[in-house]
């Protein structure tokens, strides 16, 4: 783990430590919140409002610290500085104008257009060239963090799993690890290995689906259908083994909820082993030129899928040899504490920070890369043609649930 930068240490050392928090929660003054935005290399991994104050997770590389401030407004100002391209979650008000002659706007979603998702995308165009892209969220807000509060980690994990179906295992795993860190539970190594294998399988599936979307929009429906077929077969196998097509509700705080049907593992392993062959067309020049502007991210997704599949195969193989006699989960000790859990989905780390009081969750937050991915998409939009932007969005758009929790 890298050390935090000196200037961040100086800033955090000025903060008041909240006495009731078992893990140091630094309460920053409003000027220090504003100064946080000027520190180089910092990133705000999460931001949420808890009654009269805002809390956040500040991140630099793999170093993370929870912070808080009195009043929400400085936190929102910080958020705007961190992501200047981002239209903050709101469903009304005007979009910022792109100046110039002959500029027109196209809006898509949630009612009409190719977008059937609960969001609105506004493109400012001049001719066929995108000048500016804005996304607006807030339609799909389910108030998940409020549902989580006051419940036991075991009861609340099903909400974390449903933040985004495409990264259900990753969100559950981050949540479970936070609960385990907060309560001091120790998970048996084989159970942890199976959870990692499930997360790798899920990342592989997510890569396949992103590439299928790209193939579809690049007029390669047969390639897209092949990838989707493989994903469907993997979901069928997952339903056999883990009793759910998306492996939802299996990863719980303390281990794995019910004993998986390991006799069906060879079916899933066989599908994972075929990933590399199915992705061969992405290396062929006659197809590759269709996404020449996206060569790097496509290569990244392809190798992510191949590497995750290889990792999942090697991690799952020992489990297909014999049924496990030991229990798959341990009970969480019912105690006070706070903990940070981390897991990885397709685009980077997911963090969950949780505070337990008598075995029940008093504060919980879940941070993922959803907003960062949207901000990167919006930053890359100016100067692209509309079709090129659509291709990029098809490949790199995160699930809406990751943003609208």
């Amino acid at each position: 783990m890298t050390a935090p930068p000196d200037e961040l240490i100086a800033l955090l050392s000025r903060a008041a430590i909240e006495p009731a928090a078992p893990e140091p929660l630094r309460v920053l003054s409003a000027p220090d919140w504003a100064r946080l935005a000027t520190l180089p290399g910092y990133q705000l991994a999460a931001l949420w409002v808890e009654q009269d104050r805002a809390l956040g997770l500040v991140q630099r590389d793999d170093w993370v610290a929870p912070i808080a401030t009195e009043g929400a407004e400085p936190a929102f100002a910080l958020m705007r500085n961190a992501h200047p391209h981002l239209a903050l979650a709101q469903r009304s008000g005007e979009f910022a104008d792109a100046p110039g002659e002959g500029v027109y706007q196209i809006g898509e979603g949630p009612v009409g257009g190719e977008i059937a998702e609960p969001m609105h995308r506004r493109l400012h165009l001049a001719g066929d060239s995108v000048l500016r892209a804005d996304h607006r969220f807030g339609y799909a807000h389910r108030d998940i963090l409020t549902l989580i509060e006051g419940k036991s980690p075991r009861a609340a994990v099903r909400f974390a799993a449903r933040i985004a179906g495409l990264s259900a295992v990753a969100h559950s795993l981050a949540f479970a690890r936070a609960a385990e860190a907060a309560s001091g539970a120790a998970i048996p190594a084989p159970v942890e290995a199976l959870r990692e294998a499930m997360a790798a399988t899920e990342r592989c599936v997510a890569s396949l689906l992103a590439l299928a979307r790209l193939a579809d929009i690049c007029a390669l429906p047969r390639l897209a259908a092949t990838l989707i077929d493989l994903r469907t077969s993997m979901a069928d196998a997952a339903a056999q083994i883990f009793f759910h097509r998306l492996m939802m509700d299996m990863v719980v705080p303390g281990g794995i909820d019910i004993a998986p049907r390991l006799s069906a593992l060879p079916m899933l392993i066989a599908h994972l082993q075929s990933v590399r062959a199915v992705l061969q067309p992405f290396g062929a020049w006659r197809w590759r030129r269709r996404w020449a502007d996206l060569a790097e991210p496509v290569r990244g997704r392809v190798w992510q899928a191949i590497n995750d599949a290889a990792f999942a195969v090697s991690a799952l193989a020992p489990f297909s040899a014999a049924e496990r006699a030991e229990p798959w989960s341990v009970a969480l000790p019912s105690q006070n504490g706070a903990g940070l859990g981390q897991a990885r989905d397709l685009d980077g780390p997911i963090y969950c920070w949780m505070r337990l009081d008598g075995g029940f969750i008093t504060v919980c937050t879940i941070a993922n890369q959803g907003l960062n991915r949207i901000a990167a998409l919006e930053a890359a939009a100016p100067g692209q043609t509309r079709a090129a932007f659509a291709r990029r969005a098809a490949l790199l758009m995160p699930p809406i649930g990751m943003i609208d929790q």
Partner: protein
Amino acid sequence: MKPPHPDPAIRTALAQRLAAEGRARPHLALTIRHLDAGSCGGCELELRSVRAWQSGLTAYGIRFVDDPRTANILLVTGVATQGMAAPLRRTLEAMPDARLVVVIGDCAVDGGVFKDSQAVLGGVVRLVTVDLAVTGCPPAPEHIIDGLLAALDP
């Protein structure tokens, strides 16, 4: 994809219920506008499997469209959040009168695990009249196709 086997009992029950209301099932073609009303994305993944079954969809006259004005089926997934209430109503208003509302997934039926949330209305039925529901979390692609074919007048 396995060959679809729509349940004849559901087909008959839907036809009788619609006939009692003076309505009919779409004949020969289903043009579907899909709307995500606050889903986790699981049902959408299964819908993508459905959409990848192109030969079968063409054979049965099933087509997904982007414009609600050209659709005769509104396919809704998700919990029906407060934020999606207005877009859902507007989509339905834009559609022709001869239309059916089909909901996919447990969340769309009654809110699923989110039914206690203040931001969730608790199922699409709280907003619009639902004609057919395909349950499951998420339902397998075969079940979705069976459900869609039950809504089609052959």
